[in-house]
């Protein structure tokens, strides 16, 4: 397929890897912020094509992974109410709360459904007026326009039986939190291309400036990621720290104005708790006042904050980029995709799950 196959071409990838090797004169540590990029890096073995010294650290880029336990608990509580159908994206069903996940709730009799698009949940609400349809809305800025449209449509249609449990998160505040961490050692960022198709690139400029880090807005195919790394290394080698756009075929400087307009109407910016990172100011989206009637927290009670994770799990350090999955004593032994301790092992976008799927300890750390 066009815009896919040529970006997976082995020769092009090899050329870029060679160019990176010729450009880098010293070690650099680069964080990619999107789970989709983490997945591609491990699936295609992009980290193994890089020269010694160029290290990729996987950031808090999986929206499912950073959803707090409290929200999962609330979703389960709502799903188990009579006459409620809870809808969410597939990955969310396996994220553990403090008492199991949504799939377990389903097996106990809760009506839990996977939807591909949030509008499917709105359609369900229209089709089943006697049931409460609750959409568990998670995601980054990429997913926010679609979820905003669900609320927008439900309000226009006057669907009183539709509501959203919203745990949306925003990428730039999380990047700041990672850069402000005391042990931070990140030299540059690959920003998430899909997020930027919606938001544009301007909001990264103050971050690049304040922290002196290059930020390269990067796509998701191997050639994109390698070019993103190359552009980042080129800036680092020449002492620059600006926002560059590798993914210009999809990302405009101002993002998608139409989408941002609807997001602006439907959502307001709030402080959010991130799994592994804690509370981050202005890092999330909740439904705006005009949409309060569609807020599942207003209808079924507010989410109560309490964060409990298994003591052996280092997913927090992994989400902050401080540790690698293979450095966890539980990795692949007590913690596997079938029996996940932490959320980074749950979602296929999660760093631990990606390592477990494509690498094991013996392939994990050393590069060629």
């Amino acid at each position, binding site marked *: *397929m*066009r*815009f*896919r196959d*040529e970006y997976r071409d082995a020769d*092009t990838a090899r*050329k*870029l890897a060679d*160019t990176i090797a010729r450009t880098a004169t010293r070690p650099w540590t680069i964080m990619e912020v999107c789970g989709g990029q983490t997945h591609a890096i491990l699936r295609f073995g992009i980290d193994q094509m890089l020269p010694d010294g160029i290290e990729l650290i996987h950031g808090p880029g999986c929206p499912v992974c950073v959803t707090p336990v409290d929200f999962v608990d609330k979703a389960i509580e709502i799903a188990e109410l009579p006459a409620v159908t809870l809808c969410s*994206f597939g990955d969310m069903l396996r994220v553990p709360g403090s008492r199991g996940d949504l799939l377990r709730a389903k097996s106990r009799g809760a009506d839990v459904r996977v939807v*591909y*698009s*949030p*509008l*499917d949940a709105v359609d369900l609400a229209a089709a089943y007026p006697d049931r409460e349809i609750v959409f568990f809305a998670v995601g980054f800025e*990429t*997913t926010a*326009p*679609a979820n905003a*449209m669900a609320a927008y*449509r439900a309000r226009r249609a006057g669907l009183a039986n539709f509501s959203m449990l919203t745990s949306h998160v925003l990428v730039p505040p999380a990047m700041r939190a990672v850069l402000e961490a005391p042990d931070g050692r990140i030299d540059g960022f690959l920003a998430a291309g*899909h997020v930027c*198709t*919606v938001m544009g690139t301007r909001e990264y400029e103050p971050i690049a400036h304040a922290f002196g880090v290059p930020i390269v807005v990067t796509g998701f195919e191997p*050639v994109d990621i390698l*070019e993103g790394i190359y552009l980042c290394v080129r800036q680092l080698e020449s002492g620059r720290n600006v926002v560059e756009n*590798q993914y*210009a*075929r*999809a*990302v*405009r400087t101002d993002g*998608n104005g*139409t*989408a941002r307009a*609807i997001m602006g109407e439907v959502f307001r910016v709030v402080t959010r708790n991130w799994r592994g990172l804690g509370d981050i100011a202005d890092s999330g989206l909740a439904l705006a006042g005009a949409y309060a009637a569609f807020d599942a927290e207003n209808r079924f009670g507010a989410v109560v904050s309490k964060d409990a994770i298994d003591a052996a799990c280092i997913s927090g350090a992994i989400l902050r980029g401080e540790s690698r999955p293979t450095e966890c004593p539980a990795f692949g032994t007590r913690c596997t995709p079938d029996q996940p301790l932490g959320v980074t092992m749950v979602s296929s976008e999660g760093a631990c799950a990606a390592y477990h799927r494509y690498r094991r300890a013996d392939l994990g750390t050393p590069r060629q």
Partner: protein
Amino acid sequence: MRTGRVDFGGVTKIVNLAYVPEAAIGDHVLVHVGFAISVIDEAEADRIFHHLQEIDDLAGGEAAAP
């Protein structure tokens, strides 16, 4: 709300086009959870391959020089 049939390289599917009012028939779009969120700029898409060709030419030139 505007929708359109999008070809994903062998299968087509109806996609919501509310966020790409500029999209016309024949355009390539980026789709996420059932919504097109960006129209692909074809000139930009080719840029990297031109750029690599330049690097190649440059490397070739260097190799040829004694």
